[in-house]
């Protein structure tokens, strides 16, 4: 029998500093054996991070945290909130790989100094750097964290955590801040090192794909409780609890049906759908929440059902002769962009070279690439936030305001001291015909936009800080569509959100683009999300668009190595 390295029995943890006191973890039990990897999966607020901190002994400094239950690490019984007993365990028997390798490494210290502190000698440090597959250990030994890439930093973090040969490793979202292709390498490395050392791993993550790829067993947490546990294959294959089932359904893979809403019916989206379907119809022909939910469950609800009846007229601009090429919503012709770098006078760093792209009216295009590929620069140029160094950019603003942008971090893009109503009304006023809109009409438009993203009108008087992350992102969407633009630019709008909220946002965006006939340019690093939201996918690498494929069958049509790599990185 393999020895047990971690045993948690009925552990509860509460934060007394919050008002009212918050029970973050409630009666959680699980155990990990040597050589086993246990996934602790959940969304934000599920208590998975607190659980992770508790088993590392990192909750002992805050006097307002209290705990009950028992925690045994490698045969030693410990109290997660009392410092006594942790010495010799924390940092030796149990170590951690943290999420963000940039901020988790001291920026003023060389890798060598950090690693020698735990490894003991320079030779041993170099051996560990070699062990985590760093190509030039001697150079990295002398480097500071900011001189390394994200993936390299995470390898250093793993070397730091493993150098003392712990019995238990806590991996706290170790790949969340990394590019998808780096993520796969890091997971492989963790797997290999686990086999070599035989340690147990507690893998805390919100990413179901990562958990499925990495873990032998999984516990799913929600609101501080474990709602489901079992082997990885069983939990992912046939989830028993309603919540786990919803989570698994929300997960995007390359096999997700892109013609239907993602995930299970959710009140927010269903309400918005009903609103959209009933708009402009006679009283007698209205549909209901129950009817839409039933259709969704029966998988007979298609996005095409939401297209307005007058599709044909929208795309033909007034005065255009029939049969002429339709005006694109957005067109880039040989756009280049370069920045001056510090140092020389004429030294320029080219981020975009000769990019041409065209987004038709009502079309949705996704721009997929890794960080540094130039995808966000394209979006910022399209939005007019930056100007191109060369080439031409054309936006169609004949009959509407040309562009609106939804950013990744909606919380930061909403002015904190304005209420939701002020934010939305301000957008109406600033639009092209905003000056002519009466106060009554503005209020009606704002109310309508709230319905379209299914936000309760009672929230109009709230400020952004009083809303949840998902609500804030929906306010950002409402602001972008309160006066429907020709094209909606989305910069990774779902990547900072939990799985279930992300699928809500994707569903809402899809609903809006079909119901309102808005074009979409969707920038992302996630090929699976791109496939769901778009008609066509552009793959971008090093400032150049290297491939354009229809979203319908990406997997079979991509040809470049780079796109293949991105494809492989989407965990099935």
């Amino acid at each position, binding site marked *: 029998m393999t020895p047990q390295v971690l045993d948690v029995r009925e552990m509860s943890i509460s934060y007394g500093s919050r008002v009212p006191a918050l029970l973050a973890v409630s009666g959680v039990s699980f155990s990990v054996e040597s050589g086993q990897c246990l996934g602790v999966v959940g969304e934000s607020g599920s208590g998975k991070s607190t659980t992770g901190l508790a088993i590392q002994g990192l909750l002992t400094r805050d006097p307002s945290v209290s705990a009950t239950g028992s925690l045994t690490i490698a045969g030693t019984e410990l109290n997660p909130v009392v410092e006594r007993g942790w010495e010799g365990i924390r940092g030796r028997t149990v170590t951690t790989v943290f999420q963000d390798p940039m901020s*988790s490494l001291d920026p003023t210290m060389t890798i060598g100094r950090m690693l020698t502190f735990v490894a003991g000698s320079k030779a041993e440090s170099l051996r560990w750097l070699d062990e985590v597959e760093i190509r030039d250990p001697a150079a990295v030994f002398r480097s*500071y964290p900011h001189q390394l890439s994200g993936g390299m930093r995470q390898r250093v973090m793993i070397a*730091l955590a493993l150098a003392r040969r712990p019995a238990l490793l806590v991996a706290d979202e170790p790949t969340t801040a990394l590019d998808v292709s780096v993520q796969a390498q890091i997971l492989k490395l963790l797997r290999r090192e686990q086999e070599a050392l035989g340690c147990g791993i507690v893998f805390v993550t919100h990413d179901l794909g990562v958990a499925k790829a990495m873990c032998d067993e999984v516990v799913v947490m929600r609101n501080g409780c474990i709602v489901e546990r079992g082997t990885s294959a069983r939990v992912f294959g046939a989830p028993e609890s309603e919540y786990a089932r919803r989570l698994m359904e929300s997960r995007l893979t390359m096999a997700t049906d892109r013609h239907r809403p993602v995930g299970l019916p959710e009140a927010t989206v269903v309400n918005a759908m009903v609103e959209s379907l009933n708009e402009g119809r006679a009283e007698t022909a209205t549909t209901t929440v129950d009817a839409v939910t039933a259709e969704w469950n029966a998988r007979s609800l298609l996005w095409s059902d939401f297209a307005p009846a007058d599709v044909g007229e929208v795309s033909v601009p007034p005065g255009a002769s029939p049969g002429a090429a339709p005006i694109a919503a957005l067109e880039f012709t040989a756009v280049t962009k370069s920045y001056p770098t510090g140092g020389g006078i004429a030294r320029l760093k080219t981020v975009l070279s000769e990019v041409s792209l065209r987004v038709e009216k009502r079309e949705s295009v996704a721009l997929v690439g890794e960080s540094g590929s130039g995808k966000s620069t394209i979006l910022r140029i399209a939005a007019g936030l930056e100007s191109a160094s060369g080439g031409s950019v054309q936006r169609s603003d004949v009959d509407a305001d040309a562009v609106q942008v939804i950013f990744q971090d909606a919380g930061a893009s909403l002015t904190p001291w304005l209420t939701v109503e002020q934010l939305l009304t301000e957008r109406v006023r600033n639009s092209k015909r905003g000056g002519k809109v009466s106060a009554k009409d503005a209020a009606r438009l704002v109310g309508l936009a709230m319905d379209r993203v299914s936000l309760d009108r009672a929230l109009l008087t709230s400020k952004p800080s009083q809303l949840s992350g998902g609500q804030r992102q929906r306010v950002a969407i409402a602001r972008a569509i309160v006066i429907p633009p020709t094209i909606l630019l989305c910069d990774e709008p779902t990547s900072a959100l939990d799985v279930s909220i992300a699928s809500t946002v994707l569903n809402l965006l899809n609903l809006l683009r079909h119901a309102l006939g808005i074009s979409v340019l969707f920038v992302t690093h996630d090929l699976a999300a791109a496939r769901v939201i778009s008609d066509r996918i552009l793959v971008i690498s090093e400032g150049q668009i290297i491939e354009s494929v229809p979203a319908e069958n990406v997997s079979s049509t991509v040809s470049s190595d780079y796109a293949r790599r991105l494809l492989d990185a989407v965990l099935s």
Partner: protein
Amino acid sequence: MVRFIIRRLVSLVVVLFSLSVLVFVLQRVGNADPVRAYLGPNASQAAIAATRIKFGLDKPLIVQYFDYLGGLFHGDLGMSYSTRRPVAVELADKVPATLELAAWVLFFAIILAVILAGIYTLKGPVSGVIRFVFFSFASAPSFLLATLMLLLFFKQLHWFPAVGRITDTSGGGPTGFYVLDGLLTGNLAYSLDAIQHLVLPALAASLGIGVALARVLADGLSSGMASNYARTARSLAETERSILFRHSLRNASSPALSMLGVLSGAMLSSLVVVEQIFSWNGLGQYLSTAIASADFPAVAGVSLVLGAVYVILTAIVDVVLALVDPRVKLT
């Protein structure tokens, strides 16, 4: 590094040049007549006219300025109107006096800041007291502190002397920095006496700066202790004290050092007051006499020296910043 030095030398020249223009213009705009200041109130019209020509004051203003500037290049700061001696000679023993005091002020300020911020961050039983110190001392003017210190340490306790730089004025050495001179000539008693004279004025001038610095440092240390790299260190079994000194202090010193650069400018002007109170025969005392007697060459000389000191101090701060934080590049 070479680029950095060249850039700083250029900025030194620019600062000195602008200062010379500024001081020159100010003096001409003012009402005080330098010739009357030089000759005294009872001089005859003939003597005034003669001196005016002797000083070149009859020439056009622009020519006067270039005459002055030309002198500067040869190290000639002009004649003091009130003492009738070359300003450069007069400054020769004032500059070391002030620089020695300034060095001690900075030294005390840094020590004070690290101690206060460290105790505050480790959340001991006295951190409440230190919070009070942060708020009260930062606003206390240095002349008040100086007077209080004189009353306590000189008048009541007799721990330190109150006046001058040294008891035995007959001694001396090659540099004019008395502590250093004592060490160089092997006269330790001389150094010790100089240090005793330095303590009170240096403390009085350093308290305000040190407390302001400590507040910035304490902020940086607290956020450092709550940072992700501190969490990593904790998870690797480092103690709180080790995290504070190995990781946080270095990360927190960047903003504190920038602050120190700014404060050192303020320190130079606060030294004028402190030197008066302690009869410290330095630039500050010299400057206030010179201003009172409309002694333009003297005022200009002191301004130029202080300007140069300030530029050099900021350059030193930048170098230290780059040494402390590997992400900072010297440009």
